[in-house]
């Protein structure tokens, strides 16, 4: 699509030719994930995670559709219907554990995918739109995961619905009516459960649509690569198929092995025991935490403990949303012309500090809201915002990047340029 030397699709037989003139889906596939999409030859294993995220979404959609055939979105029956799936439905336990742990694995691969983008500068021109769509997908995933977590109607489900909609109540003037509008009542109940079920079914398809746009936007400039430098010519690329399909096949195998180990041998490891107690509006569990993939944001939410002009609660809500909104501005906050962190000595250090900081935030978000955890989460939150809003803009001015290789081929082969040959698809 993007490079003039991309392989052209030629229908192999009369039927494909007939098809190509009427509905060129094979051509579309060929050009987007087939031999017609030239990809930098030097991608490392971190570039597997985009495809893995797509695989994770497909697992969620397929298992979700069949689970919906047995689940009952009614406050008095939802919990029992999940137990019915676990006990009586044929392979029901497998489908539910896959869906439940699949959500966690989806977030694992997406978080690695995001860190990959952060380190190698994939958010920079000309791929800003790819990044922006990615952040939209992340927000949609979070909404979907939250609503899905409410569906089993266990204690954690119920109190998640209560607490998360309660965040909106912090908004001045309209907050309380907004929360009631979200819940369809004064507390989570049947109306809440039904709308969450409806939206939980809808949003994955919206995500799918955004992923198509994400890939479309990616294919115009083509994929970034570990050196961050632009593709200069045919010798820098190889066709997506068979090279990266083969590599992604291997990656998918490793991903499925990891998923299978958790699903079959530790299916409740990533969950919370309290969600095996049916929702009880009259009793809050002693220690409520969201699912692990929300812990960093939960830590940011709880880091604000003192009123300062605005209420502490409102600050927490603003900061939590800001922690994601800030990602939208990243392409314009970091103005360094060099994409890859490999050639940015200062950026590289701060990047790893950020990784540690976010892991610390995750740990603190899962910890009880006591000292000294709160103080640590305040320090970690300070760094999170400082990293994106203060440190990145500053180092992009002061940093002196390392010399860049002249081309991807040179980076791959060192000085020995003679053996690099353009590659055609078989």
């Amino acid at each position, binding site marked *: 699509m993007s490079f003039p030397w991309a392989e052209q699709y030629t229908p192999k037989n009369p039927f494909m030719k007939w098809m190509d003139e009427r509905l060129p889906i094979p051509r579309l596939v060929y050009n987007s994930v087939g031999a017609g999409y030239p990809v930098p030859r030097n991608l490392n294993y971190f570039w597997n995670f985009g495809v893995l995220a797509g695989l994770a979404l497909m697992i969620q959609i397929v298992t979700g559709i*069949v689970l919906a055939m*047995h689940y009952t979105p009614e406050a008095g029956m939802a919990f029992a219907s999940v137990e019915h799936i676990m006990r*009586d*439905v*044929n392979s*029901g336990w*497998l*489908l539910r554990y896959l869906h439940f742990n699949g959500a966690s694995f989806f977030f694992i691969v997406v978080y690695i995918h995001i860190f990959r983008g952060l380190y190698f500068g994939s958010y920079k021109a000309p791929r800003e739109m790819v990044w922006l769509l990615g952040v939209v997908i992340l927000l949609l995933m979070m909404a979907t995961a939250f609503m899905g977590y409410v569906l089993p109607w266990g204690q954690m489900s119920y109190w998640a619905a209560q607490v998360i909609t309660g965040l909106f109540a912090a908004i001045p003037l309209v907050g309380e009516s907004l929360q009631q509008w979200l819940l369809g009542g004064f507390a989570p109940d049947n109306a809440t459960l039904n709308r969450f079920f409806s939206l939980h079914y809808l949003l994955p398809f919206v995500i799918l649509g955004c992923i198509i746009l994400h890939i479309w936007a990616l294919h115009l400039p083509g994929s970034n690569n570990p050196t961050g430098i632009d593709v200069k010519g045919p010798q820098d690329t190889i066709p997506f198929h068979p090279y990266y399909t*083969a590599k992604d*096949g291997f990656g998918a195998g490793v991903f499925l092995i990891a998923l299978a180990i958790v699903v079959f041998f530790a299916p409740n490891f990533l969950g919370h025991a309290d969600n095996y107690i049916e929702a009880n509006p009259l009793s809050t569990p002693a220690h409520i935490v969201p699912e692990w993939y929300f812990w960093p944001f939960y830590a940011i939410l709880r880091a604000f403990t003192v009123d300062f002009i605005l209420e502490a609660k409102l600050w927490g809500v603003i900061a939590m949303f800001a922690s994601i909104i800030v990602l939208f501005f990243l392409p314009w906050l970091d103005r360094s012309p060099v994409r890859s962190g490999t050639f940015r000595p200062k950026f590289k250090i701060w990047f790893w500090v950020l990784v540690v900081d976010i892991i610390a935030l995750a740990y603190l978000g899962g910890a009880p809201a006591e000292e000294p955890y709160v103080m640590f989460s305040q320090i970690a939150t300070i760094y999170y915002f400082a990293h994106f809003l203060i440190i990145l803009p500053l180092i992009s001015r002061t940093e002196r990047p390392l010399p860049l290789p002249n081309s991807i081929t040179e980076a791959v082969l060192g000085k020995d340029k003679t053996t690099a040959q353009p590659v055609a698809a078989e």
Partner: protein
Amino acid sequence: MATEDHVDQPAADQPEEGVRRRDFLNVAAVSVAGVGGVIAILPLVNQMNPDADVLALASIDVDLSAVEPGQTIKTSWRKQPLFIRHLTEDEIAEARAVDVSALRDPQTLEERTAEGYEQWLISLAVCTHLGCIPLGAAPGENKGEFGGYFCPCHGSHYDTAGRIRKGPAPTNLVVPEYAFTSDTTVTIG
């Protein structure tokens, strides 16, 4: 990735053999992935089969002591309606008088009832044509031209042994498996 170097070497010296082995590996990998994909579909299909709690309702006990000759009771088994008819002497005689070989679905009354309990005609109340419930159970309902059941949807007539005699239905009313546990109780399913 200890195998990496190991795999890279052999084919270079033996291109012929190498090419075949390379193709074989790729074909094998894709085939195994295909097999895995097909296996993964099995639970997705199987989940639509009846659940364990539905299957657990597969047998019911019915008390027949209050059913007089000539009376039919309607009950339900596996969520399907079921007729239990206490045949009168006349109805039994009528059913036996029929020339079985001339029937669309040849069966004698004895084949359709339990030995020693020929007066109890137990059948699904589901017309074998397209699944409506035939009339003829409640007093005053149209029993059809042959005194058994009549399905109003498309006009199938069943006789006093529940056999199809006229109309579009292809087979006799289905007789479920059952066993009498005493003279007045029957276990169906």
